[in-house]
């Protein structure tokens, strides 16, 4: 085997994978995440830095289109894995091995690359309709891209390969009243359905000034599955939400620990003592409390007005209160407590815009992660 094959095989041994979840595919996502950790493969946050695109569950029509655009963003050599909703660990293992083999298959990757070169560089007008709604990786490229903070694509900025000659062809950033009395550029950025640690199938199109949210409009991209998700217990769902919130807060070590505990509990191992200690450790972190205090406050009146149920209702307050609430609920669920009323996703989606307006982009992500609506239970529409 020549040096080149050996090098290619070595490079393809530990590819970076970008996991995409569809509303019905949460169960599959858990299995995939556990399998990736077992193999030591890194899950990355953006398709541009990924080699393998793993799609969990069957996406609906629009979500599939969004995934197509994200798939076009994955640089070669690249491989794609489609995992069904109710998948078993062995099937996932086989699929990932297939992906690694595909990455090491040089002729096939050359063919794929040649075909992409033939398709020519990306230009805005052929990039599909407005509803492409693809995810964070490519978020601002369509609408926001050209109005990148008032500085026109036309004047050639860095790596953009095509030049917008005629000014008419460029969507100029329209200006709107700022919260501060100024009239500044407005940027439309979708926190798209395809984004890491983001509720599957949710699409929040934000109107940004700077990185402050002026206006938020929530949409749901349905999954094609039957919509029922077997989490394997309420504690697993809560630990998963905690893990995603901690990942969005940037605390990778704690997020990883939450996910390990989640997988152990899902496998039936008794982890009550560890969850107890983990809850205390996260509770003690002053930096975390300093960062998430006072964000997305839901008071009693908001609970009634939007008909909220579940964690958001039982633990009114800010993101920190909801995080603490989730820990309490997870411990209760582990102790075999009575099953409590779940959060109603539709109500969460109704309350979201009012929480996001005025928040910064990072705060908006934290607020959504703290609510973490599970859209699989949402009656699929649109």
């Amino acid at each position, binding site marked *: 085997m020549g040096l080149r094959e050996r090098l290619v095989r070595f490079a393809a041994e530990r590819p970076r994978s970008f996991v995409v979840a569809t509303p019905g595919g949460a169960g599959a996502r858990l299995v995939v995440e556990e399998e990736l950790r077992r193999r030591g493969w890194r899950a990355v946050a953006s398709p541009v830095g990924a080699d393998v695109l793993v799609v969990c569950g069957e996406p609906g029509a629009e979500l599939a289109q969004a995934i197509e655009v994200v798939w076009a963003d994955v640089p070669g050599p690249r491989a794609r894995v489609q995992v069904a909703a109710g998948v078993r660990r062995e099937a996932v293992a086989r699929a990932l091995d297939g992906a690694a083999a595909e990455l090491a298959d040089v002729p096939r990757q050359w063919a794929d690359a040649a075909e992409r070169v033939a398709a020519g560089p990306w230009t805005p007008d052929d990039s599909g309709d407005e509803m492409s709604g693809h995810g964070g990786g490519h978020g601002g490229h369509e609408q926001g891209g050209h109005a990148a903070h008032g500085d026109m694509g036309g004047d050639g*900025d860095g790596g953009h390969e095509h030049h917008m000659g005629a000014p008419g062809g460029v969507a100029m950033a329209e200006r709107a009243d700022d919260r*501060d009395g100024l009239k500044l550029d407005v940027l439309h950025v979708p926190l798209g359905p395809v984004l890491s640690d983001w509720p599957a199938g949710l699409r929040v199109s934000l109107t940004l000034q700077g990185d402050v949210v002026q206006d938020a409009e929530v949409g749901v991209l349905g999954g094609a599955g039957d919509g029922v998700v077997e989490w394997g217990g309420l504690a697993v769902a809560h630990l998963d939400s905690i893990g995603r919130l901690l990942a969005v807060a940037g605390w990778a070590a704690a997020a990883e620990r939450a996910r390990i505990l989640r997988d152990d509990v899902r496998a039936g191992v008794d982890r009550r003592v560890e969850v107890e200690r983990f809850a205390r450790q996260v509770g003690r972190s002053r930096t975390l409390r300093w960062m998430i205090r006072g964000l997305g406050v839901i008071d009693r009146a908001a609970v009634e007005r939007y008909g909220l149920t579940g964690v958001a209702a039982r633990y009114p307050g800010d993101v920190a209160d909801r995080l603490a609430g989730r820990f309490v609920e997870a411990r209760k669920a582990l102790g075999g407590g009575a099953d409590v009323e779940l959060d109603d996703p539709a109500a969460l989606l109704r309350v979201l815009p009012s929480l996001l307006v005025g928040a910064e982009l990072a705060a908006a992500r934290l607020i959504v992660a703290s609510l973490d609506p599970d859209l699989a239970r949402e009656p699929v529409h649109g």
Partner: protein
Amino acid sequence: MRTVVFWVLALAAVGFGVAVFRVDSMARATFALLASFLCVGGTMVLLDLHYLGVLVVLMMIMEMMVMAVFMIMYMMNPAGLMPMSMLHNRRGALIISGAVLVALVAGVWTVDWPERAGRPPGDPTRALGEAVMGAQMPVMIVVGVAILATMVSAVVLATDRGRYDGGDR
């Protein structure tokens, strides 16, 4: 050798200076100005003013980054798309600045400058430090008060309520 370096830096500084008003993107104008300042900082290092040269480099990079923020924020019309400067005052400006240039250069080359008084000290930075802390102390006090006054007035002028919710807390 120093002369060659000087002329390279000088031409670069003036070239970037002209580019500031030639280029059509706000970010490029800012970075052209930054490049011009870096060249000036370089010339000052040539004059053995190491401390002041590097200080100019340090200060100007930070200033130009903040300026880039404001340039892009306030340049509502994208310079590339809608030409900004009207023609008539461009020609007038050209004439005035040309006249000023000719006058200055004439002055530079005709006046016979006095001979140098004294030798440059071994370490100009130490000399600057002692002067600023000693004889020139009033200058530093005035500059300090001016900075404070600017900070206060800039904040008063600029902030109305603050675009972040926390502004009014």
